[in-house]
């Protein structure tokens, strides 16, 4: 109990004094997970829309694959991204293993199926006749897709939140492909694990409180935007 209190006090101290190292780690976490989420939204929303509005053979198989991938274990992603990015691996020429870019790649791989899956579900919830109506008004299929995305916007915000929540809290992939390098690839989750193994439980608790607050505030902002949109309809 005493330890938790110590941790909370330490977190407050770190937040107030704007501890340089903690600040850098927090900013890096936001940057990396933010970019990864952005990439996953671009790929996920496009793929999800394509799957939702098209009927093709094997659609159910594709969907079930996406749904399974929504639960991809981060360590598995981390392992494969590491193997691909090794110096002597297929993408070794990029030289990005143990850099923040490697973490972005891994996190984007984790978040993309989440965003894709939720997008498909959101699209399929729209009335089927809406598509026909839009097409009847003379829109191209591309324009139709854009309109459908706009219609499903509220659910898509949920997709963004789920994707971001998935990657900011993820550790297995970040530690494998990033290496937890001080001042370079150390993010909130990997720092927490390291401080725990160093026995600095107060710092570890402080870091996890910061992580939680961060996740909360970002979701708060997104929820605000979402609800505002919903009110304006």
């Amino acid at each position, binding site marked *: 109990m005493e330890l938790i209190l110590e941790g909370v006090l330490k977190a407050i101290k770190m937040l107030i004094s704007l501890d340089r190292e903690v600040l850098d780690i927090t900013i890096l976490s936001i940057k990396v997970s933010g970019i990864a989420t952005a990439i996953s939204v671009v790929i996920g929303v496009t793929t999800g829309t394509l799957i939702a509005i098209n009927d093709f053979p094997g659609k159910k198989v594709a969907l079930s694959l996406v749904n399974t991938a929504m639960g991809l274990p981060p360590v598995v992603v981390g392992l494969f991204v590491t193997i691909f990015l090794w110096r002597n691996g297929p993408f070794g020429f*990029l030289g990005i293993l143990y850099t923040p870019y490697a973490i972005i790649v891994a996190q984007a791989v984790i978040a993309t199926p989440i965003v894709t899956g939720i997008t498909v579900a959101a699209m399929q919830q729209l009335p089927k006749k809406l598509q026909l109506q839009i097409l009847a008004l003379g829109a191209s299929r591309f324009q139709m897709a854009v309109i459908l995305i706009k219609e499903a916007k509220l659910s898509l915000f949920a997709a963004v939140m789920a994707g971001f929540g998935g990657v900011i809290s993820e550790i297995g992939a970040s530690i494998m492909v990033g290496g937890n390098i001080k001042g370079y690839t150390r993010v909130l989750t990997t720092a927490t694990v390291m401080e*725990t*193994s*160093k026995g600095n439980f107060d710092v570890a608790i402080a870091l996890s409180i910061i992580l939680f607050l961060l996740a909360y505030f970002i979701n708060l902002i997104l929820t605000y935007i979402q609800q505002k949109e919903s009110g304006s309809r």
Partner: protein
Amino acid sequence: MCFRYIKYGTSVFLMFIIFTVICPPSSAGEKNIILATTTSTQDSGLSDVLIPLFEKKYGYFVKTIAIGSGQAIRMGMKGEADVLLIHSPEEEEKFVSEGFGINRRPIMYNDFVLVGPPSDPAKIIGTGSVVKAFRKIAESKSIFISRGDNSGTNIKERALWRQGGVKYEGERWYHESGLGMGQTLNIASEKRAYTLSDRATYITLKKRLDLTLLFEGDRLLLNPYHVIEVNPLRFPKVNKAGARAFSDFLSSKEAQSIIKVFGVDRFGQPLFFPAAPKKQKGLER
């Protein structure tokens, strides 16, 4: 119909281009070194002192990957690291003799200690040798937490069981954590179990642990750390100059004098003893 796919394809392609562009070419450059090292150098905080100094002096950027010695050697064998700082002498010798590494130099040493619950159920205090102490743990079936991760500590521990002729694999009292030294000590403390630890990590974590140092001083427990450069002839992508610079730095008088006093301010005793210039003393092999 087709148009849509082209558009999709292009956007993915564009993303890839943008992505490659924002990747700094420097990350593959000659100023980066990948150092594969043990968890003990990171958990004790030594790498946080030595590496920034090296980076400032030589202008390299060191990517420290803190893993077990066994895993570090595996990375070296694939040419995925430039330089190793590890503590697993037998594996190191094999690594060098098989042509994976060059220029193996002693950097520092400390020793392993056998820690356990203060009540010492296996009665190992005052035992004559570490092998006997291990045997007593097995005979009393007291819980022992092994790293189980092929780290230098884990390899040493398995060798000690074998020397005592103890069957440990699959025994009910023998648990493998698969984690770093710090985590393993925490588990041992919670489960009132015995474990083998390097002295540096144990001293660093001591105040949070309910573990007592029960056995030390056997010459079998010597724990030397060596630096090895990954062989650039075998792996052309290795940063040869950077690895050599790092090895030279660790052997330098400056780094050695830092190692000598590291930890004294916090714990009243050093965590490592320098080994590069002079002969190892105190604990002879």
